[in-house]
């Protein structure tokens, strides 16, 4: 453990916006549970003593359980618990919905789980392993994915967790409220060193955080890395701006609804972008031909995240995101209007699309 060992404790620290909400709900439930447990225990012991069999008496009494009173009793002890538990349901659901909707201003951090470590990439380019540095009182949105099996990003002090799935992106967000160091656990069993897949969350003051960001991170930002990957893979040959290419323009596509050739539409989120790169023929944008080769096996999970971050940044009028103080919002959904998808009349140049090494059977 990296944390200095704490002595015995009975309750986890409250270090995020969710902690007090969850604890409040927990308190309500504990009170109700304790009330019913004690009630049942008391009645059983009381009856066991009061109505214990006395020698000599052998004629059992008969209580009428079809009387109005008995039926009312049955109804009462069905309806009252139902009412109390529906409060739990509604309360719990409202917390979960809040946990599911990251605020628009949240700072994006990408996390990749891998047997048995956490790899973290910050937009500005900083990377860390089994550690996550975040500024206090700032909404943090994690985009999670796994390179192998299912993991789970669990921070008890924040009262939140989310499964980390291979081949898909999941989201988790929180706002740390207290400076300090907190446990990060993998909560979904992931193999031999599952219990070693732990880490530390460092919640820092904004100044410390900016200092930490600045030190020793000469690499480019994720979006810059993504841009060079975009060039290396030749994506720009077809995905040209303003609909001049044989493939859709990617500017501003992130977060938009994309019309597909079969008449349906799909929201262009991280998972969609990933699917479109790996299985380009699964969903064809309306008005375009089925010409894109697959990039399966040519791009790593980390690379994919960079590519996604670049595509997200493409709609941003400021261009590529680079190191920037925390005052600006990370690229997110841009209000640039619906994506223009003109009919493709542009014929492919002789070079054609970059042929895929993996499969040679595109039409």
């Amino acid at each position, binding site marked *: 453990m990296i944390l200095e060992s704490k002595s015995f404790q009975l309750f986890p620290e409250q270090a995020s916006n969710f902690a007090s909400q969850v604890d409040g709900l927990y308190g309500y439930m504990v009170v109700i549970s304790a009330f019913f447990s004690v009630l049942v225990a008391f009645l059983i012991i009381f009856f*066991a003593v009061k*109505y214990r*069999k006395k020698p000599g008496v052998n004629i059992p009494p008969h209580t009428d359980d079809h009387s109005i009173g008995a039926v009312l009793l049955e109804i009462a002890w069905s309806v009252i618990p*139902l009412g109390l538990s529906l409060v739990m349901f509604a309360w719990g659901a409202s917390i979960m919905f809040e*946990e599911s909707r990251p605020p628009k201003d949240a700072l994006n951090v990408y996390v990749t789980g891998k047997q048995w470590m956490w790899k973290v990439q910050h937009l500005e380019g900083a990377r860390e392993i089994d550690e996550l540095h975040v500024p206090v009182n700032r909404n943090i949105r994690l985009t999670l994915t796994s390179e192998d099996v299912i993991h789970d990003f669990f921070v008890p002090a924040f009262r939140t967790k989310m499964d980390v799935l291979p081949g898909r992106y999941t989201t988790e967000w929180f706002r740390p409220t207290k400076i300090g160091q907190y446990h990060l656990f993998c909560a979904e069993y992931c193999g031999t060193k599952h*219990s070693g897949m732990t880490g530390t969350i460092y919640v820092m003051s904004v100044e410390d955080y900016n200092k930490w960001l600045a030190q020793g991170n000469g690499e480019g930002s994720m979006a810059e890395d993504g841009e060079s990957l975009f060039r290396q893979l030749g994506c720009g040959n077809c995905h040209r701006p303003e609909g001049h290419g044989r493939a859709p323009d990617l500017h501003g596509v992130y977060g938009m609804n994309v019309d597909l050739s079969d008449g349906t539409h799909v929201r262009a989120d991280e998972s969609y972008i990933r699917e479109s790169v790996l299985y380009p023929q699964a969903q064809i944008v309306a008005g375009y031909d089925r010409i894109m080769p697959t990039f399966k096996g040519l791009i790593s999970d980390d690379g994919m995240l960079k590519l996604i971050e670049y595509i997200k940044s493409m709609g941003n009028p400021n261009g590529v995101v680079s190191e920037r103080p925390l005052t600006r919002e990370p690229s997110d959904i841009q209000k640039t209007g619906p994506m223009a998808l003109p009919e493709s009349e542009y014929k492919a140049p002789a070079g054609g699309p970059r042929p895929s090494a993996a499969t040679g059977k595109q039409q």
Partner: protein
Amino acid sequence: MITAPPQVAEPKNYLNAETGLKSWLLTKDHKRIAILYLIVVSLFFALGGIFAGLIRMELATPAGDLFDSNTYNKVFTMHGIIMVFFFLIPSIPAVLGNFFLPMMIGAKDLAFPRINLLSWYIYLLGGAFTLYVLLAGGVDTGWTFYTPFSSSYSNGYVVAAGLGIFINGFSSILTGLNFIVTTHRMRAPGMTWFRLPLFVWSMYATSAIMVLGTPVIAVTLFLLVLERGLHIGFFDPAYGGDPVLFQHLFWFYSHPAVYIMILPSMGVVSEVISTFSSKKPFGYTFIAFSSLAIAVFGFLVWGHHLFVSGQSIYAGLVFSVLSYIVAIPSAIKVFNWTATMYKGQVRMETPMLYAIGFIGLFTIGGLTGVVLASLGMDVHLTDTYFVIAHFHYVMVGGALLGYLSGLHFWWPKMTGRMYSDVWSKVSAVLVFAGFNLTFGPQFLLGYMGMPRRYHVYPPEFQVLNVLSSAGASILGIGLILPAMYLTWSLKYGAKASANPWGATGLEWQTSSPPIAENFEVTPVVTHEAYDYSTVQEVVHIG
């Protein structure tokens, strides 16, 4: 084997009707098959218990000093597989249900005696696969077999373990099928549905779950085995599969399976509370229908295991609210049991002690389940020790205590012998105390965030883990005791009377132990169940 040597004056009963090993291994008598099940189920329970002990020993310290992590993972996996599939699911249905369901409805046997025997052999075959896994080197997937870990990454014997459970499933299906047909068509004249003992109602509901749910886990494990061998892509994202789909299929069975474990215990407790209060169960109809309600609604809530799995939150919303609704029938039962004691004539015999322990622990288990069913709460608590504690309160505090209660209740009938009163009460108290000390602290650990299946853990969790391990040793002693005094009673126990507890069921109206075809004359039922005015003075020893 518990064949008592035939003595000169010993009246004929199912134990001495035929002798020799062959007469046991080829028997079609439901009572003998129940005894066969009892023996093997007990062995598996002992094995699973040893693994539990090993887990608690390892967790007494934060570091991994007893095993390496690979071994630890195999230990908890084997503990889970053995306890769930080879102890909890068959325990009450295949032992107590097999023995008493036909007797309680006044039948000579189950509808399909040969299928009943076949189900025991299938169970053995499934068990053999599991033992093979154990001896060959174990499996480390956890009993939940989540993909893609189990299909592509685990180094253990996943295929053999999967096949073992797959095969064992058919044993469960056949038992359920047999019970359903028997309940429908083998009832004695006059035994109408609302004269059935509550244990029969609960076994019927259990059987319905077995029949409807088990095939789904069978096909799921079948697909998992194919996936593992051939990488056909059903559940592995690397080939386009969806691991969450596996979880849906897995929990479609495995959540209702929880009710396969707990419903029979509820049936036992209904019998025991009524008998030892000498009073008809309060709200007979409500208890009976709540069993069926649990069987039906139990199939609608599986997704509450998937709240943070990447399942749609809207699906989670529906699963959450349905989970609250399924909790209501359980609450109804608890209140009805309590009310049954009101103005009864309560006798604190050993089965009653276990039954009361059951109610207390099951109440806590159920209420913490209600805590977990809340979406926002579950996000924090799922996959932590809170869940471990919750389901052990239901599985051990509920299912196991119910099983022990039933075993003590019917032991005189099954064997014709009484066990030690003192020792059995000591054991009941030890089990109750040890259990709470073992799993109570785990609620706190879970809320603090200790994840399940952790081999090493941060030092601040140690105090509670030590408490838990200490409790486990008390629990262990409490569970070894019955094995000893029950075995002892076979030879030295006093001979039991036909109705040692003053109970009302048909099974108590024949000799202890019963004759081969249960009743001298097929009984004719003329009044409702639980009419204690017909019971004579209670005599333990006959």
